[in-house]
């Protein structure tokens, strides 16, 4: 049901408004026609057609219809003779009909035109609306994108790390402010391959090779290099880069970061220095224990030299002098003197701070030499040293002095472990064998009290000692020496009491 108000709206829209519009147009046409009637003889009804078209155009079909009706009456009344009467004479009848048909035609055409026009306008409006909507949408997503990018940038700037990216071919593209601040350069100063200049002269080539390998292999880049920071100071950095790939695996960009490891590196170097200092100290300490052995070791050839010297004098003093004996004795003096010199040199090497270059040696020879140095200690400890050395072992690339130190430490420890034994034989066994994977296995066995299983690893901890007055660095240094030789040092209980200390030494690669 229509309410009253709706009815009036309907009435206004469908009747009053078209009627008013049609009336207005027809009135204008009528007035103009009246005016033109004074000048022209022929009745100008086309103005009414214009009024019909105008009404239809501007106010719709209803208005057109009203206009046709109104104008028809108007034409019939005012302009078709007899004038001022609705009566129409026969001759004018066809004229009026023609007018009405034209008016209708005009109204229909105009209406259709108007409708088409309206549809077009509507379509255009729709399009405009769509465009506006889409534009708004794009604008929104653009703003979102911008926001994201800003956030990302802020993130890369906020992270207290040096971040950079590079093109797939490795040319530098972007880096964050932290990196720029760190190196004290501007963005443009790093473009292309200029960033290579940041690396330390000695590291540049190595980095370039690693970077090239990463780019061509599509592998991650990782390494530690020195980079020139602002103020021309070099610091160690861990440089890492990962490739970003598309779905088909093509690298689109490299993302990298720099991590300052300078302090760590420095601490490590300091640690290494301290450790080598400790190693030397422990060497000196164990040498202290060995002083008697050393004295003996030097004294033996010296005694031989002196004794041979007297003998030589004796042979020369004889009547007639025994020159043959004197000659052979002199040769012996030379031999023994040389031997004494070698001993001194060996001992000096044991005390020295320098690390010796690694040399390819027979491990059995090193062990025999060690056993000789330990002769006196073993006599004092009333311990027998038994060697069980496997024949035909390949040579090993080792630092002879360090290896002697390890053997010395293990042997002295073993002997001390047995010092409490009474009533049974004290025997220290030093043996070599070939391990299952081609490495050389060295073991030092004692028959002492042994080590509790829970302490088996602790004995290698620095400053852990079970010995009175021991500072507990011996075994920890032994382990670091063996590990520096890419070997392994461990302990296990010996069947029947005591412990076995074993270590491995890898055989030279080219002999394997």
């Amino acid at each position: 049901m229509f309410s009253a108000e709706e009815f009036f709206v309907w009435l206004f829209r469908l009747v009053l408004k078209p009627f008013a519009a049609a009336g207005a147009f027809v009135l204008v046409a009528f007035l103009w026609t009246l005016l033109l009637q004074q000048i022209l003889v022929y009745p100008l009804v086309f103005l009414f057609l214009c009024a019909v078209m105008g009404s239809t155009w501007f106010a719709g079909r209803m208005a057109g219809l009203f206009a046709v009706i109104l104008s028809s009456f108007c034409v019939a009344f005012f302009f078709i003779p007899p004038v001022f009467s609705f009566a129409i004479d026969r001759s004018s009848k066809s004229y009026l009909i023609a007018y009405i048909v034209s008016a209708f035609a005009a109204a229909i055409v105009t209406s259709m035109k108007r409708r088409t026009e309206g549809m077009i306008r509507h379509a255009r409006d729709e399009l405009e609306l769509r465009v506006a909507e889409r534009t708004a949408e794009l604008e929104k997503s653009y703003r979102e994108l911008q926001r994201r990018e800003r956030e990302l940038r802020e993130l890369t700037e906020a992270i207290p790390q040096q971040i950079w990216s590079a093109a797939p071919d490795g040319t530098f593209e972007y880096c964050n402010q932290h990196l720029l601040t760190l190196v004290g350069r501007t963005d443009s100063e790093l473009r292309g391959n200029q960033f290579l200049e940041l690396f330390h002269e000695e590291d540049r080539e190595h980095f370039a090779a690693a970077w090239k390998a990463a780019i061509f292999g599509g592998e991650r880049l990782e390494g530690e290099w020195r980079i020139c920071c602002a103020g021309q100071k070099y610091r160690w950095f861990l440089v890492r880069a990962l490739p970003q790939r598309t779905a088909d695996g093509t690298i689109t960009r490299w993302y990298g970061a720099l991590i300052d490891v300078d302090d760590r590196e420095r601490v490590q170097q300091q640690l290494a220095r301290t450790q080598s200092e400790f190693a030397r100290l422990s060497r000196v300490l164990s040498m202290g224990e060995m002083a008697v052995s050393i004295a003996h070791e030097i004294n033996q050839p010296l005694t031989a030299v002196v004794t041979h010297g007297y003998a030589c004098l004796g042979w020369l003093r004889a009547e007639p002098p025994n020159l043959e004996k004197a000659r052979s004795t002199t040769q012996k003096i030379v031999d023994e003197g040389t031997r004494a010199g070698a001993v001194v040199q060996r001992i000096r090497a044991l005390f020295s701070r320098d690390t010796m270059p690694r040399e390819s040696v027979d491990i059995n020879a090193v062990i025999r030499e060690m056993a000789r140095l330990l002769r006196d200690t073993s006599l004092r400890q009333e311990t027998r040293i038994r060697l069980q050395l496997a024949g035909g072992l390949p040579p090993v690339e080792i630092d002879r002095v360090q290896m002697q130190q390890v053997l010395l430490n293990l042997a002295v420890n073993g002997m001390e472990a047995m010092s409490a034994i009474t009533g049974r034989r004290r025997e220290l066994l030093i043996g070599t064998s070939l391990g299952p994977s081609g490495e050389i296995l060295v073991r030092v066995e004692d028959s002492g009290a042994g080590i509790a299983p829970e302490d088996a690893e602790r004995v290698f901890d620095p400053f852990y000692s079970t010995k009175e007055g021991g500072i507990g660095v011996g075994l920890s240094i032994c382990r670091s020496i063996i590990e520096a030789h890419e070997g392994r040092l461990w302990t296990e209980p010996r069947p029947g009491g005591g412990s076995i200390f074993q270590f491995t030494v890898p055989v030279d690669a080219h002999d394997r």
Partner: protein
Amino acid sequence: MTDETMTVFIVDDDESIREALLNLLESEGLSARLFASTEAFLDEWSEQMAGCLVLDVRLPGASGVELQEKLIAAGIRIPIIFMTAHGDVPMVRKVMKAGAVEFLSKPFQREELLTAIQQAFNLEREIASERAERRAIEERMATLSPREVEVLELVTEGMLNKQIAGALEISEITVKLHRRKVMEKMRANSLAELVKMTERIRKGPIR
């Protein structure tokens, strides 16, 4: 100081020391035999080996000091000269007390060694003559009858003939007869001499 009957027995585990000593002693016209360990020396040992030992204090296995102890325990008296690379005072005292001739620190002077060897040889000669003398006394003693041995024992204990007769429940004249027989058989000129002989025997066997 050459003496063909005497040999220097060198025990040292260091071959170059052994050789050097051999060379020196040869140049002095002395004969020497070398041993790498005390065990090797004991294996070779025989009563006919006259001379002296030059012994390293510290040796693998049984040490020089242990060898000295073993020899004393076995009643073998052979002069010992010790050598060492270390001035080990308590050890010096110990081995010297046990009768070592000398204690040499390596390296030692020629004279030190030769003098020590000379001393050792002299001692060895003394020991040998004493040994010979003892053996003679023992031989003479072996000719005594059981009764004469009884009389000898009591006489050397300082008993008078009368007391001996009482103890053995024989007449004093019989004691006198036995006593004269003993003096003759033992070739003793006086009672004092007889006492000295028996004392020498009482010290026990030397080898």
